[in-house]
């Protein structure tokens, strides 16, 4: 399902949480991760490093890495770990 903040691309599901106040980005990202049609890779477009998200990702079995993004953007690649 696509919204104005989420879309699908060849490299996985994307979510743009730039401009949202905490804890809205965390809630939006975790909501996406819990959807059945979300694949095993999610790309997050953020305006800051979501340090408070990391423990929640670990609890849900997702790894994270920061990848190259636009200037002023923090882009993360989240990968679901094998069960």
């Amino acid at each position, binding site marked *: 399902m696509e919204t104005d903040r989420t879309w699908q691309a060849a490299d996985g599901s994307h979510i743009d949480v730039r401009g949202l106040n905490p804890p809205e980005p965390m809630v939006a990202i*975790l909501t996406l991760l819990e959807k059945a049609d979300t694949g095993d890779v999610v790309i997050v477009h953020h305006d800051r490093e979501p340090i*408070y998200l990391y423990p929640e990702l670990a609890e849900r079995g997702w790894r994270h890495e920061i990848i190259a993004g636009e200037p002023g953007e923090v882009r993360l690649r989240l990968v679901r770990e094998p069960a």
Partner: protein
Amino acid sequence: MTIAATFLGGAKSRLLPASVPFRFFGAAVLFHPAAWAVLAWDAEAAVGFTGGLGLPLAALHLLTLGVLAGTAIGAALQMLPVATRQPLGAVWPARLAFWLFLPGVFAVGHGMGALHLWVLVPGGLAVSAALALFGWLMVDNLRGAKSLPIIAAHGWLAMVALAALAVLGLLLVFDFQSGLLQDHTAAARAHLILASYGFMGMLVMGFSQILVPMFGLSPEPPVLWGRAALLLSALALAVATVGAVANDVVLMLAGAAIGLAAAGAHLWTMAAVMRARMRKHLGLSFLLIRAGWVLFPLSILLGALDLLDLLGPRGGTLFGFVLLFGWLLTFLLGILQRVLPFLASMHAAKAGGKAPLVSALTAAMPLKVHAICHAGALVLVAAGIVAESPVILRLGAVAGLVGALAFAAFAAEVVRRMTGWSLGRTQK
């Protein structure tokens, strides 16, 4: 750039080194059993305590400065940069503040308990200097706040209250030595209002707007109610403080009535957050947080009833106990037991790669023991005050001490598991 920002310049990350918040949390964990132990030690004096030097006042300040302020400083240093979206100006003032805070609180506790003014005065000065450094860091950060104006405004109110309570606190300390105040009791009452509902209360209400949704995984709290709680709190604090200084019961009652409305607005926002949360099972920590939410308005109500002389001779003691050990301690211990493993996991993740699970860092048994003992302590000490029974009060304080030791065991276990996880990763 402000002068302070220029001078403080340096820190680059919104995430402080783990040692900064953890040293304040560690101090809070150590002062917690000390506060209960000192209360148990002189239960005879604590039953009818209404002020003045002695062990009950020492227990009170080990709690308020050591546990409550220690937790609030650690959390504020960690949370405010996230809320304002800008890093703390520098880390060294926080470290320096800690090395003034730790011996300062010990000295204040010892000076008050042993009636050693030559220890109390330098202790009070050291704690005031620590609070001034902390306040400076907060104000510098708040001046550049880029988001979450309601949380930032709560922070500003807390800083105003901090400045006023610190000045009043020093005046009260010097008054023990030289008798410079006309009405020591009125100043002490204003100091209590500013410290509990002002400094601590505003930090609790402000950071609840971000911490509770974060832990419950809820959307942003309703802005209108948050704004109403803020404005009513500011008004209540001003009216109650002026009433306390002027010894005007009507003004203090008006402050309590407005304060009750502020508490209602705040609790309404928290209820909305809880209704919308994604995480259904919140665990033991939220049991304490919910208990804190009940005890917050109850403390104001008890304060008002005591002003109306409807609680008998021990009304003031009961009000102070429910306010400090009831609302603030219960709520903050709920937050602290959630924050400690969460921060530990977050800092490990920041170091790179996979974070340890929060659940794997949390030892459940000590927290259960703590919750049971803490609940028992609140009931027994309150019953001891009402029944004017030092025996019941001492039993309650000992239960609180056992609970506090269990909480310390939980905190030590978080650090042990965290260290073990980090060492294991380094050796891979």
